[in-house]
């Protein structure tokens, strides 16, 4: 298995050497689908359901891009990627865009040859812990054994947190999310650390979700954003404005149900957004109706959020930072004009 991975990287290097850099939009249109890197095992963000249909907040944001380019939410092929392989897959051209709960950081944005798009989920790292231990705060975790997923910013964050608080920790690093969760539920570790959204997802699949709690401390800032290859600005614009269309639709009060009525609206912002007044489509090199299509076929950001991770799902996550800026959150779209 290890050998295969090494081989895969070697082949990637060869592929990189042979890669001719055409525009991603042209490539995607020529082959008729967008190859999208997703998580593959994260409930609520990127996971296929028991019928094989891909579901999740990241997946639906990717579908928005597919709608923008093809007018069809299903012109996507998904590549499930581990935290370790995701950036290499994008660098090498194996995928066209990455929607895999990736934290935007300076070094990733620069040294990895990636460009991050607009944030589609504001997250932060926390701790999941068994209630039996009676721990109320992360500051009581001195000497704890901590289950960590490798290949993420989480290893570094948790080490930083323990160092700054003068505490010791003992990490157990297991590559596979499911294996890691199993070891944690069996009691191998005192706590599990990851992004709070992932902890909610992990707790939802616990044998007894009620036995576990997420500690109040959030120890890092994790703006999760899609990523594309560095230097292809046109493609990055398309990915960005597809996600922003979801946010802007919510801001303008347009939902998948009322979008057809909104076509008759007198509001110039809505007219421009839905393509009644042409302009935004041409600017991006897309259909004038791309934003209309996104809202019609997928919905607005609020709908996507509530459907996948909101309070009425198994994850039960509040909007919090992910509410619109008008409602105390950070979701903000530049004007579509």
């Amino acid at each position: 298995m290890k050998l295969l991975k090494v081989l895969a990287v070697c082949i990637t290097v060869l592929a990189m050497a042979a890669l001719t850099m055409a525009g991603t939009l042209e490539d995607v249109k020529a082959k008729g689908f967008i190859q999208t890197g997703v998580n593959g095992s994260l409930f609520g963000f990127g996971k296929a359901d028991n019928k094989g249909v891909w579901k999740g907040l990241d997946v639906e944001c990717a579908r928005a891009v597919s709608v923008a380019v093809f007018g069809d939410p299903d012109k996507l092929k998904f590549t499930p990627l581990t935290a370790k392989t995701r950036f290499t897959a994008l660098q090498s051209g194996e995928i066209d865009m990455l929607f895999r709960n990736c934290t935007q950081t300076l070094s990733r944005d620069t040294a990895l040859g990636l460009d991050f798009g607009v944030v589609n989920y504001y997250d932060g790292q926390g701790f999941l812990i068994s209630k039996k231990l009676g721990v109320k705060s992360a500051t009581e975790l001195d000497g704890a054994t901590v289950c960590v997923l490798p290949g993420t910013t989480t290893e570094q964050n948790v080490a930083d947190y323990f160092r700054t608080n003068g505490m010791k920790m003992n990490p157990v690093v297991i590559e596979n999310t499911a294996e890691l969760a199993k070891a944690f539920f069996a009691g191998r570790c005192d706590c599990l650390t990851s992004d709070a959204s992932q902890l909610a997802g992990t707790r939802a699949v616990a044998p007894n979700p009620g036995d576990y709690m997420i500690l109040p401390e959030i120890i890092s800032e994790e703006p999760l954003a899609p990523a594309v290859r560095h230097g292809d600005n046109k493609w990055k614009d398309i990915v960005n404005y597809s996600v922003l269309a979801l946010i802007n639709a919510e801001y303008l009060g347009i939902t998948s149900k009322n979008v057809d009525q909104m076509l008759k609206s007198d509001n110039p912002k809505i007219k421009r957004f839905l393509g009644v007044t042409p302009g935004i489509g041409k600017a991006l090199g897309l259909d004038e109706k791309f934003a209309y299509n996104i809202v019609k076929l997928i919905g607005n950001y609020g709908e996507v959020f509530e459907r996948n991770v909101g309070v009425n799902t198994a994850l039960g996550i509040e909007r919090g930072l992910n509410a619109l800026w008008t409602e105390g959150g950070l979701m903000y779209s530049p004007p579509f004009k």
Partner: protein
Amino acid sequence: MSKAINNNTENISFWYDPDKRSVMYQIGAACLFVFVAWYLVSNTMTNLEKQSIATGFGFLNTEAAFEIGESIIEYSAADRYMRALWVGFLNTLLVSFIGIILTVILGTFLGIARLSKNWLINKCAAVYIELFQDIPILLQLFFWYAFFYETLPSPRDAVNPFSGLFLCNRGLIFGIPQSHPVYKYMAIALIFAVIIIFFMKKWAKKRQDLTGKTFPVFYTSITLIIGLPFVCWLIGGAPTEMSIPVLKGFNFKGGMSISPEFAALLLGLVLYTAAFVAEVVRAGIQSVNRGQTEAAKAVGLKSGQVLNLIILPQALRVIIPPLTSQMLNLTKNSSLAVAIGYPDFVSVAGTAINQTGQAIEGVMLIMVVYLIFSLSTSVFMNWYNKKMAIVER
């Protein structure tokens, strides 16, 4: 006749001369190789640069900023990547080294058991070999790891069969002697004992060759190995203070511990590889003609002596080359550690790759490290093989 050939060679044109032609092919092949290598490297470099991906090994000198679960040297997140990778290297070395020794011992026992005339022992060994050979190693590792963390209790309910030893899902934690200068001298005494034994063995063999008198090398060796350090310990004041593990907060403090990850990896690798080694040993012993055993018995050797002096020296010739390859397999399979959370070299390098994004350099390091492990094992085993080869008289 020879003149005719000479005439012939002179007549052959440059392009049709087989000698010159073969040289041309060699040069052509070399050029092609250099060109392809140059093309790949330069193209990769340009593309990396174009995508502004960092290159080079400079990252080794920057702060690692991540913790590692277990280490046989001091390590903290404030250390550099270099040190973190060194920790991973030593962890791989540790599990491979102990694994190889246990595998050879267990494999030899099983191989001999497989040839036993006792029906029960014979069949048990056969079942074991078939079972462990046929289940993929990764599944075995998952099984042992899950077995440890599912069955063992939490540290608060740790099994404590006798004072100073605890068994829980954090591992096997046991008391060790409190550090004291005398232990250093005991180690030196042990090395000293080994050197004495080496020369004593040579002397005993020479004496036996000359006079025919045997010397109890085995018992003397045991006495020396235990006795010298013991005397040293007595002289040093016989310190008996122990570092006993105590449950403090989440985990045990003091003593030494063997983690479930290490135990699962070691157990999985040893049980799996020993099945193959057993077959190698069986084949080696069977390759020695039965007549040899009969002849040795006829001369009056005891059965232990038959095995030691007659069968093993001949069987080893057959055993060593495939045994070497099993040792290499064990070392390489140890990289599956990443699946069950043991921080081996691949695991640590993987984290380094992810944090720095320098996959090409990281994978190159992994390849170099495994090459070093494999080549040094091969070199040692080839030397041993040459030493063991039967000298034709």
